[in-house]
């Protein structure tokens, strides 16, 4: 008896040890998922269908008028960087998958008969017949080229307005514009030279070829890294989600406790008017003090406001490091009335909260009225990570990244860990 017990225990221990070991070395892109296993939690009345799995690093996505879903990949799949998913029988699941475009990237959207997609330095467009979802691959045109791509924060997200302009985020390849990036004690550069070509949103013409900085307009500056952005058609303005800076506790333990470092700075939603300056790298939003304050690299002490007083203020603040990667204003009629014109935000999940528990890995909803938030944000879709608390970011099963609205008013969500696509719909 004793022996059996001992054997059972050591087997259990061996299994656990082996189990966690294999999780650690497993590459996230080869994980196998059965089609319907990817259950996520949703409010009452909503249900989800898994449209596709195993696309790999599925970043942003867009839906044509016929319901075909186009997904931009950050790692080529079978040599393709854009995947088209077609559902022939209307059960929500993709029955036919095809691809084109031989570059990796994040941004993708459809407007006025064109599909726009970005690499990490350029923007392309293709003619699309929205009634059939057919893309004329030969019509590829490079409309923007030569944007800063320095690895860090190199996603080029896209949004279009109703006046023929396209907005491209150019993330700053830096944490806080220090002389030596992410080296403790290295001072902030003042003025920050990165802002000339990055750390903001640039506006280009949607139909002009080979534009670069000389042809574009720096529409907004002082934005460290935006991945989720959307044009709000109700008020005709651009909204962006900024990823706040890292390393406050690691670099300034005299100002921030470990827990405060995990909660700060806020991830912020900005309503952008042309010429806006949102403050990076000089300013950060302190969730504890509920104020935009001077960054310690620029002499901040968690009290000084200084030059941050004049910067554009955010309209919603979220806990630190949750990594907002997708923003979508919902204009459909399928969901209950409270969702109309409100914002969905896909949070990729944190890493800079360690050793505090990681957080995020969910899609939230913020109700809006007349272009301004009209209530508190709430978690809409959850359960992506597969763990409740305490695990490392790399153990998250799925990481929400992109959001799109289908013509029937369903919400489509992508995950860039495995490449799973969900379609969320509502019925009473």
């Amino acid at each position: 008896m004793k022996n059996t017990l001992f054997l059972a225990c050591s087997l259990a221990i061996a299994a656990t040890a082996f189990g966690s070991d294999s999780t650690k070395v497993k590459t996230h892109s080869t994980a196998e998922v059965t089609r319907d296993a990817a259950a996520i939690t949703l409010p009452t009345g909503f249900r989800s269908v898994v449209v596709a799995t195993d696309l790999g690093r599925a970043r942003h996505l867009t839906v044509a008028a016929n319901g075909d879903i186009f997904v931009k990949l950050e790692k080529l799949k079978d040599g393709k960087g854009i995947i088209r998913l077609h559902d022939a029988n209307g059960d929500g699941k993709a029955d036919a998958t095809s691809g084109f475009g031989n570059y990796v990237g994040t941004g993708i959207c459809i407007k006025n008969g064109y599909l726009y997609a970005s690499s990490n330095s350029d923007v392309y467009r293709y003619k699309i017949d929205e009634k059939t979802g057919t893309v004329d691959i030969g019509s590829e045109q490079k409309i923007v080229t030569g944007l800063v791509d320095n690895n860090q924060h190199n996603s080029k997200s896209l949004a279009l307005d109703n006046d023929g302009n396209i907005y491209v985020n150019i993330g700053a390849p830096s944490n806080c514009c220090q002389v030596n990036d992410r080296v403790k004690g290295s001072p902030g550069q003042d003025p920050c030279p990165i802002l000339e070509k990055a750390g903001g949103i640039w506006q280009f013409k949607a139909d002009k070829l080979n534009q670069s900085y000389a042809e574009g307009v720096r529409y907004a500056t002082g934005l460290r890294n935006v991945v989720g952005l959307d044009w709000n058609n109700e008020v005709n303005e651009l909204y962006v989600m900024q990823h706040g800076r890292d390393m406050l506790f690691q670099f300034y333990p005299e100002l921030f406790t470990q827990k405060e470092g995990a909660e700060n700075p806020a991830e912020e939603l900005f309503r952008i008017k042309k010429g806006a300056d949102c403050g990076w790298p000089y300013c950060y939003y302190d969730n504890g003090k509920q104020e935009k304050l001077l960054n310690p690299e620029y002499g901040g002490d968690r009290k000084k406001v200084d030059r941050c007083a004049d910067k554009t203020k955010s309209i919603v603040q979220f806990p630190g490091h949750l990594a907002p990667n997708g923003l979508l204003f919902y204009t459909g009629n399928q969901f209950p009335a409270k969702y109309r014109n409100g914002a969905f935000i896909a949070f990729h999940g944190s890493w800079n909260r360690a050793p505090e528990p990681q957080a995020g890995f969910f899609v939230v909803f913020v109700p809006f009225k007349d272009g301004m938030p009209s209530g508190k944000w709430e978690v809409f879709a959850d359960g992506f990570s597969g763990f409740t608390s305490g695990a490392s970011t790399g153990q998250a099963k799925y990481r929400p990244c992109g959001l799109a609205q289908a013509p029937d008013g369903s919400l489509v969500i992508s995950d860039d860990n495995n490449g799973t696509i969900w379609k969320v719909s509502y019925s009473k």
Partner: protein
Amino acid sequence: MKKVIPATIIFIIATSFALQQPGGAKAAIARGKTVYENVCLACHQPDGSGVPNMNPPLIKTKWVLGDKKALTKIVLKGLQGGEIDINGDKFHNPMPPQESTLTDQEIADVLTYVRNSFGNKASMVTAAEVKALRAKLK
């Protein structure tokens, strides 16, 4: 008897190497853990598993287990981002150079800790080795 002599010699050599680290391997690993927590943990995570697409894992990689000079150089001089490739995956963050922030002893300790944690098993890195490389890379 003949076999005992080489064994003794190996033992003496091994101990004398260990003694180059104050307090021996155990103390070096303990000190290295503190350095890891203060400097490396944020990016490479408490369990060394890294962050997908952002920061590489420190588990049985060829850099962690391989040539000590190449490994020490990474910590001294840092990396730009996108330089490391693990099964086709690249990493977007830069690896910040630590030559201005960590002493030879701290770098030796943290690398000894990393090479003997997260399932890794490899020889120690000594302060003398870090010092020599630092001088060479100047």
